[in-house]
């Protein structure tokens, strides 16, 4: 079932990407093209097949609960869009 303009608006809102009016029609057509390509998957019976999430069957490693990284706050904040007193600045969210 093809996506509707409302679907695309909803996905864009979830993804936090603003879509201009003019972009919506093109995005809709291209996404529908991509989903038509993907639809071929649905014809295959996958009953009883274990999903494969990773190329290797990895076990997550554990490490001792010890601080291992040096403090690099100054370097990281030097490239931030807006900082003050060691804090990242964003528009006010609580009145």
């Amino acid at each position, binding site marked *: 079932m093809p996506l509707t303009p409302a679907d695309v608006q909803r996905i864009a809102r979830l993804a936090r*990407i603003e879509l201009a009016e003019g972009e919506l029609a093109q995005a809709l057509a*291209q996404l529908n093209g*991509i989903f038509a390509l993907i639809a071929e998957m649905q014809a295959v019976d996958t009953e009883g097949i274990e*999903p494969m999430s990773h*190329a290797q069957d990895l076990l997550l490693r554990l490490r001792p609960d010890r601080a291992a990284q040096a403090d690099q706050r100054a370097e990281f904040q030097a490239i931030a*869009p807006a900082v003050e007193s060691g804090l990242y600045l964003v528009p006010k969210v609580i009145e």
Partner: protein
Amino acid sequence: MHNATLAELSQALRARRVSSVELMRLFLERAQRLNGALNAFITLDAERSLAQAAAADRRIAAGQAGALTGIPIAHKDIFCCKGWLSSCGSRMLSNFVAPYDAHVVERLHQEGLVTLGKTNMDEFAMGSSTETSFYGPVRNPWDRGAVPGGSSGGSACAVAARLAPAATGTDTGGSIRQPAAHCGISGLKPTYGLVSRYGMVAFASSLDQGGPMAKSAADLAWLLTAMAGFDPRDSTSLERPAQDYTRELEAPLQGRRIGLPKEYFGAGLDADVRRAVEGAIDRYRALGCEPVDISLPNTRLCIPVYYVLAPAEASSNLARYDGVRYGFRAPEYADLDELYRKTRAQGFGAEVKRRILVGTYVLSHGYYDAYYLKAQKLRRLIAQDFARAFERCDLILGPTAPSVAFDLGAKRDDPVQMYLSDIYTVSVNLAGLPGLSIPCGFGAGGRPVGLQMVGNYFQEARMLNAAHQYQLVTDWHLRMPEDCR
């Protein structure tokens, strides 16, 4: 000197016939002269590169040099290099000067390789033509009206035009192998987990893998030896003992069984590519290999499965670009939500946004089972196809791409056509296997053709051996574009 192999450069440096500074000057001069036409590099920083080269010369003088000390290497702009712009081809990171080195960069630097610059790429590695870069498209050095392939198109172009002796690349669905094929160079995607991804900007984490790009298989073997190794900072890095990937280069191929998947030679494969690849198979037969017909029956599902899983993982990985901690921030916004929406609307290009939207949809409530989970189940079937095939053969050979490099702009506005050009490469990432591409001839318009080789897990040394033996009896890898001399 710009045509020399890494082994030759290594010998020349150690015999003091050339210094690292002289080599760097030579390649910088070529890069500066040809980059205007090719756009292979996003950043060249002669001062920084020459300072690194001078340090390498001091190491050589002090007798502390490794085999590759003093050799210039270009890094794909997806790798963080401390003090260098590391933009990933995106406006979103167009002001991001990395505060640290990627593991790969760190290792190559320890080995003494010297950073020659940062290469152009599809934005966030999403593309098969290097046309989605914020910094403009890369040209194919064999035909400037053609794309170089992608996403590591800048690295492939730089090596093909002899602007760099070697380069790094990354491969999520073919991004090392396909541009290597289109530019007539050699490129290797290692087994998933062999090369650490620390400091390599994440696209689709269950598929991404870094690897070397160079003129020959022997050069790839030297580079992989320096790049591969365990890194506790990447949770997918495998704990395996270090290896010398050059060790088997000279072994004879007598009796090696090469699998030819019938699905890779069917409809959709261009006649010129088929001819070149079949010529290469004849060579392998002459080298004592035994061709075996095999089948990878789920090949047709690879593109659909890949274009569900990769966007899903990308939508999650790219959620971090919100204009708060680093990178681009929209100049105007009324509140926090608008800061996010405008930053991401203006910071990402069209293809990246498209993939984020696809990924967001397939992971969203009510659709997860039908798309993401379904694709993960099919992924297992695709991996099982390869497991069965490797019971009957040692290596798989086929085309890297269904056509030679296409014209610039030909598929730019048609994502589905662009995605279909990945048909022979994405399956290797889905299964996590190693794959490489080496030049095997020329097709329409004098554009190069690549031969893809797929091996079983951790078979890189044997694959490089097989590629090297082919290159001993052919000269495709020695050819270079006329107008880059």
